């Protein structure tokens, strides 16, 4: 079956920012996103783990967004601006999908 080239944006960011990142994706007309939990990690701000934590403060989440290449810069520019002030990273990679109209 024919497959179409899309981009996969993977955002790892502190949990309290979830609503703001997804809100941005909404405003940028991303067709969807999925939030995946993370349980531990390390970055420039040191080590963290979710175990026993009541607060969302020192926890990260991962947000995945599949989007069209034509659309990707539109999303990435404000996204990077938002994320850069926070603890987290953004990566972009190539993926193929079946339903090009879906994204």
């Amino acid at each position, binding site marked *: 079956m024919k497959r179409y080239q899309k981009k996969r944006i993977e955002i790892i960011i502190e949990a309290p920012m979830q609503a703001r990142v997804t809100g941005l994706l909404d405003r940028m007309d991303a067709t969807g996103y999925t939030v995946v939990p993370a349980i531990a990690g390390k970055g420039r701000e040191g080590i963290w783990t979710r175990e*026993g934590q009541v607060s969302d*403060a020192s926890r990260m989440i991962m947000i995945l967004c599949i989007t069209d290449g034509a659309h990707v810069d539109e999303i990435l520019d404000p996204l990077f601006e938002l994320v850069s002030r926070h603890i987290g990273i953004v990566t972009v990679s190539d993926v193929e999908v079946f339903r090009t109209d879906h994204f």
Partner: protein
Amino acid sequence: MADIFTLAYANLVSPVVLFFVLGFAAALARSDLIVPEQIAKALALYLLFAIGFKGGAGVAEHGIDQKLMAAVLAGIVLSVLIPLIAFFILQRISKLSRIDAAAVAAHYGSISIVTFVAGTDAVTRLGLDYEGYLVAVAAVMESPPILVALLLIKGASLFKSDATAPEPGGRSELFREIALNGSIVMLIGAFAIGWITGPAGQEEIKPFIVDPFKGVLCLFLLDMGLVAGRGMRTGRQYLKPPVIGFGLIMPPIGAALGLVAAQMVGLSVGGTTLLMTLAASASYIAVPAALRVALPEAKPAISLTLSLGVTFPFNLIVGIPLYGAAAQAVAGG
């Protein structure tokens, strides 16, 4: 004085404190003992539920006190004053950046509900009663310090139109989030329901919120010990001696202000101890999360390690008996 030591000792060998110590030690020794995340959240929810409901049922039982409004007002004043003092002290004694100092100040202006709960436990063990509405006072003290910190950093621009705010929702969204923080809603909600349904309502759910309360608290303090110990292990390097010093002197300062406020309001000895405890305690759940959104440039490890690893144990082990003794000396007899 003998009294303080007896109290301190009784406090020290209470299961509640010992479970905290167990958790702290286990984390320092790098045991893999953990309390799963959702369980920790559920334990916190339970404590808010129980303490809120009991507070409300207490108000329903004893009738509404003229002092309630005064106490709420006192709470608000304390929660604005304390972060300002904290910020001032930090600017003098530590080398923290303005932003980090403001963030730490917000934590110390706000309150720790578990410290409050541990306080009620100690007060009750002394055979003292306390005003149920202090639960509501605790709730109103949670958020103002966050705004104080933001004002310290952003000044008046904080309240300017947020049309240009780079973040979705902007400031007004942020204010809504801070005001409707989950722990405030749970505490005030349970308080209101306890008030409406009164002692009869409390009777119905007593085997859930009263009887097993202390056991649940032990488990929660085990978890806090684990998290605090882990924080000390990984976050120690963020805490220079002056900052640690701040974490030890700020609680008595807050407690002293709380004592004055309690005297002005006219609280009972138990109530005075608890208002002191609230003023002395530092947030480690609600404020850290709010600041990650509102002041992302502040280093989270500093405030959190200090609040949870230094001030919480200090209050739990040394502070609360001290505040109790002071309250008894000043307000008692």
